[in-house]
Every structure is written in C-alpha cells, then in structure tokens.
C-alpha cells in the first residue's frame, strides 16, 4: 500500500516528465520514467518493511526509515483522540489510517499526531478500542465489544439543509476557483461552445445576469447536496462503554472520530444566517485536546439538522435534559443595541461622506446609503437580539453572533479563569464583556456587552469563591450616576 501511495504522490511529477521531458527522444524518456517508478516503488516498499508500531501498557511507538530513521512515541495517558479514516483506495484494500492525537499544539499551531497509515481495517478498530478504553488495556482481543448506545443517526430529510451551509458553498467556490486557475494555467482560449458566449453578449444584460445566476445557483445546489451526501452518509453518533463518543460517517472516504467524554467541557449549537432561515443548526463539541483551532471539524457532533434536533443531541451528549443550550436566556441592556447600531452606521456614513467629496457621481453616495445602511442596521439588530446569557445548575450558557449565531453551554467546573474587559465606549454605557477562559475549544467564551453588575454577578455565581475577594458592592443613588 505504501509504495502505491507514494507512487500516487509522484503521479503529477511523472506526468510532467512524460509531457515536457528532460530532453532526448521519447524512448529515453520512457526508460527514465520506468527507472523513476521503480525507485519510488522500492523506496515505498522499504518504508513499509521498516515501519513498525508497538502499543504497550503505557506508550505507543512508531519507528520507520532505513537511511533516515525516525522513532516517535506517545505516552498513552496523553492520547486525546483516535481517528480512523479510509479513502477510496484504502477501502479497496481493506485498509485504514489511524491517527492518534495528543491535542498538544506545537509552535506551528498544528496538533502533534502519530499516524499509522495503511493498517488493516479490522486491526485499526481493535487498536482504537484498546487505546480508548484504559480498562481494556490487558483485555483479550477477541472480547466482543459491548453494545453502544446510539445518540443520533442521519435522517435523509436533513438533506434540505445542505444548500444552506456555508462550508459547502466555500468548497464549491474552491473547486470553481481551482478550475478557473487550471483554465488560466493551461492557457486555454475558452472555447465558445455552441456560441453561448456570443449569444450572451448580444442578449440584454439582465438576461445574461439572470441566466448566469440561475446556473451558478443550480451548480451550488447540486454541489452542496453531493458534498453533504459524501460527508454525512451513514452518520451515527454513539456513546460507547468506557465513556467515549464516536462519530462515524462518510460515503467514499469513511471517517470515525472518537472523543473521550471526560474531555468534554460543553457543547455549542451553531446557526448560520442561512441555516437559521431554514430552522437548522449544527452541534459542535467543546472539548480539550481536539487540537488546532476547530480541531479540523473533529468537534462536529451532527450534520446540519433541525434546530430541535441540534438541541436534543446537545442535551443527550451532556446527559442533561432539557439541554442547557435551549435554556431561556437573559437579554442584554438596550445600550448594547445602541453600540451595535453605532458600529453599523458609522462606517457606512463615513463612506457616504467620502463618496460625496470624491469625484464620482452623486448617485454613488445615495446607492451606498440606500443599499448598505439597511443591511448593516438589520445585522446590528440581529446581533443584539442574539446576545444572551444564563446560568444553569452545571452550565454557563452564552449566545452571540451577527449572522452566525453560536449558543455555547460551558461546564461551570470547566471555567479556569475570567477576563473582564471594558472599552472606553463600554465604560460610558456601564457595559462589560465577561469572558470565561477554559482549556477546551476556542479557549475563551464571552458574554458580550452585559451590564457591569449583572456580568460580574454571573461570573461570581458560575464559579463560587473565585471572584468574590475582588468584588465590592457599591450603592448607587439614582441621579448621581
């Protein structure tokens, strides 16, 4: 397998050599190429022969290389995640890639991982279970795994959310961009098939724009549905004995992500503007040791699904019903709305003023005001309405976001510090931003623009005794403030 993979990696080089050639006639090119292929195959085979892994009671070791030897080992108590993925080629040979993550961030920000590439699929599953279930360390391999509890499974009606996700649009954009780049690179004169281009340029402008928009939307629709199906086919979220959450999904490339429940510090329900319009949401785990900023999507507990389902899964995962994420939240003071409106209006008005004095027609200014101002003001109002916070018996719940709204439920025992910040404008409005720091997820979750007193009260109550010594009570007589 390894040789094949390496060969795959060299395919572009081979193609380039074949096409451009290093000089000489075609015959010598082919011989050179064969030598190259042989070299890659031998190198790959050697690598396969020299790669060994070992798992003993307290560490996992990986050794490889003949000329350049490398050995890596990870203490087993540092292991945070064990992922199993298998691409198409791997699946043909019944192989899997096992990634063991420690969640440690090296200087580059990348999580340090130990990758066991191309081990037998059945073996990968056994290794995964052994690594995650410490009690099963010395257990016999043949023991049948006890039944797992299914927390959520894919429903095909969720496919309706596929076109509403930004990630699918981004993926599509990337593909489109790459294609355009390719066309550019090859230097192809865009061939005008069926004189479409000519007809478009001679047709009225509105018709051209409409046709183009419809085509782009159709491609986006189909593309996002395909991306959704590939990513979430056979999705299942289960709770395995031993306290592990496991997500399995994927049509062509199968993925399995395992997350220890004792690393879980909370859950976020994320609703983008589009998803909200369709009453959909995603559920993301807030856990330590996921590595990277978002843990490369490892924290995704659910595909885009109905909001009620997202909250239900949050509750089930946190073993708390009803879910803290669907708690009724306290609204923030009107002053927070004022801040948002000012921040929405000032840049637009400044642009308008600049346009007024700039050597452009006057309608440019009016257009900016008429088109941009309503949008930013609506977003500001939305951002204000999204603000909220609450405290349940075990969770601190906070919600914010303009456009993308995230409701985060963070374990109160997972809060490892507080940051209270106040800008000049906040000070004048008696507002603060109270941020709970945690080892999990983004590292900090904020209650934005809350009144100073209320914000401090929540922080004090959420983590008993931490903030008390630094607080004082002040009596405010109305009219003196």
């Amino acid at each position, binding site marked *: 397998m390894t040789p094949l993979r390496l060969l795959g990696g060299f395919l572009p080089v081979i193609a380039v050599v074949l096409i451009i050639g290093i000089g000489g006639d075609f015959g010598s090119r082919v011989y050179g190429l064969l030598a190259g292929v042989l070299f890659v195959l031998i190198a790959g085979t050697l690598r396969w022969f020299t790669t060994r892994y070992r798992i003993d009671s307290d560490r996992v070791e990986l050794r490889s290389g003949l000329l350049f030897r490398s050995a890596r080992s990870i203490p087993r108590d540092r292991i945070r995640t064990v992922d199993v993925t298998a691409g198409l080629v791997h699946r043909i040979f019944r192989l899997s890639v096992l990634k063991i993550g420690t969640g440690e961030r090296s200087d580059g920000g990348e999580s340090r991982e130990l990758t066991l590439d191309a081990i037998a699929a059945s073996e990968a599953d056994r290794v995964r279970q052994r690594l995650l279930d410490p009690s099963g360390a010395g257990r016999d391999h043949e023991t049948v795994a006890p039944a797992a509890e299914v927390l959520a499974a894919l429903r095909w009606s969720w496919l309706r959310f596929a076109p509403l996700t930004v990630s699918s649009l981004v993926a599509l954009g990337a593909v489109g961009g790459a294609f355009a780049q390719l066309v550019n690179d090859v230097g192809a004169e865009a061939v005008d098939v069926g004189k479409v281009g000519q007809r478009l340029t001679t047709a009225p402008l509105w018709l051209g724009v409409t046709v183009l928009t419809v085509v782009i939307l159709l491609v986006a629709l189909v593309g996002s549905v395909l991306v959704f199906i590939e990513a979430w086919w056979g999705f299942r979220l289960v709770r395995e004995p031993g306290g592990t959450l496991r997500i399995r999904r994927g049509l062509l490339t199968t993925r399995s992500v395992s997350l220890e429940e004792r690393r879980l510090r909370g859950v976020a329900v994320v609703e983008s503007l589009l998803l909200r319009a369709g009453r959909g949401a995603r559920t993301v785990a807030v856990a330590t040791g996921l590595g990277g900023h978002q843990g490369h999507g490892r924290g995704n507990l659910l595909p885009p699904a109905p909001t009620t389902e997202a909250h239900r899964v949050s509750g089930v995962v946190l073993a708390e019903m009803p879910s803290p994420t669907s708690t009724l939240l306290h609204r923030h003071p009107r002053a927070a709305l004022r801040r948002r409106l000012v921040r929405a209006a000032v840049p637009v008005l400044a642009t308008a003023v600049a346009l007024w004095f700039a050597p452009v027609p006057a309608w440019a200014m009016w257009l900016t005001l008429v088109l941009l101002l309503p949008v930013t003001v609506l977003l500001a109002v939305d951002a204000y309405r999204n603000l909220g916070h609450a405290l349940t018996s075990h969770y601190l719940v906070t919600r914010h976001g303009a456009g993308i709204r995230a409701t985060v439920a963070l374990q109160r025992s997972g809060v490892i*510090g*507080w940051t209270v910040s106040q800008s000049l404008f906040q000070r004048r409005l008696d507002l603060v931003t109270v941020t709970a*720091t*945690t080892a999990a997820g983004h590292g900090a979750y904020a209650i934005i623009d809350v009144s100073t007193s209320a914000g401090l*009260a929540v922080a004090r109550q959420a983590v008993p005794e*931490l903030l008390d010594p*630094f607080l004082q*009570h002040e009596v405010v007589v109305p009219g003196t403030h």
Partner: protein
Amino acid sequence: MNRPQIDPGTTEVLRLRPPRHRVSSRAIIWWTTQAALEVAAVVIPLGIAAIVWGTALPWLVPGTGVVAAIGLAYLLVMPRWRFRVHRWETTDHAVYTAQGWINQEWRVAPMSRIQTVDTERGPLQQLFGLATVTVTTASAAGALRLVGLDRAVADDLVAQLTETTQATRGDAT
C-alpha cells in the same frame, strides 16, 4: 461577605475593586521610552521628508507638526494613564491583574489552574530594572501578563507562584 444596608430608592451594584499592588513607578519611564521610540520612528522620517520636499508639497510641514503633536500627547498621557490602571495582586487562591489605558482589562486565574510562570526582560526593561511575569493556564486565551514589575518583586512573585502551584496537583484543565 457583609453587605451594606440598602436604603430604599438606591440600587446596589457589583464592581471589581482594583488589585492591591501598583507596578513599579519606573514603568512610567519605560512606557515613555517605548512610546518615544515609536513616535520617533514615524515623526523623524516625516520631518526629513518635510525638509526635503517642503517647498514642493506645502502640506507636509503642518502635517508633520500635527503628527508630532499627537505623538507628544500620546507619550505624555499614555504612560501615566497606564500606571494608574496597571495593578496586580495574588491571594492564596488566585492571581488578579488589571491592565490597559483607554481599553481596560481585568483577569483572574485560580492558583489551581496555573500551568507555567515565565519571566521576560527585554533590553529596555533590563535598563530600568523591570521584569514582565506571564502566568499561563491551560486556556489558549487566559494568560495573565504582569508588565513593568520591579525586578526583585518579580523574582519573589515567581518563587511564590511556583511554590503554590506545585502544592496543588492535577492537570489543570
């Protein structure tokens, strides 16, 4: 905690009290020096440009004057304002800091969650006998920075923090 009696018609509000200790007063000189270097880096090239092209671009001279005035105000106001805000305090259970000037920030980290305590002394800080102590927790966002401490105070603080955090065990997450 005893609460004061509340008269009818008044409201009781919670406030953060400032941490107990100020940073070293030499921090004012340090911040001023830093600010002076920053301002000089902008004003000197502008001044040279004004001398060279002053006749061709007449707005360069007053422009430079305005920038220099703003810079001067900044290096007079900022260090003193900062000195009033920057404060720190440790208790048996927590570290508490305040920092900033226009925008201010208060941070609290419990002793039991502290992971590392670093000291850092740049060339200017060495010159003025100052040190910066950084206290990190397991959070990617929760580090506390105590800037402009007297060097001896910083050393004592680091020793004390190291001792306290070693006494409390756990992986601090």
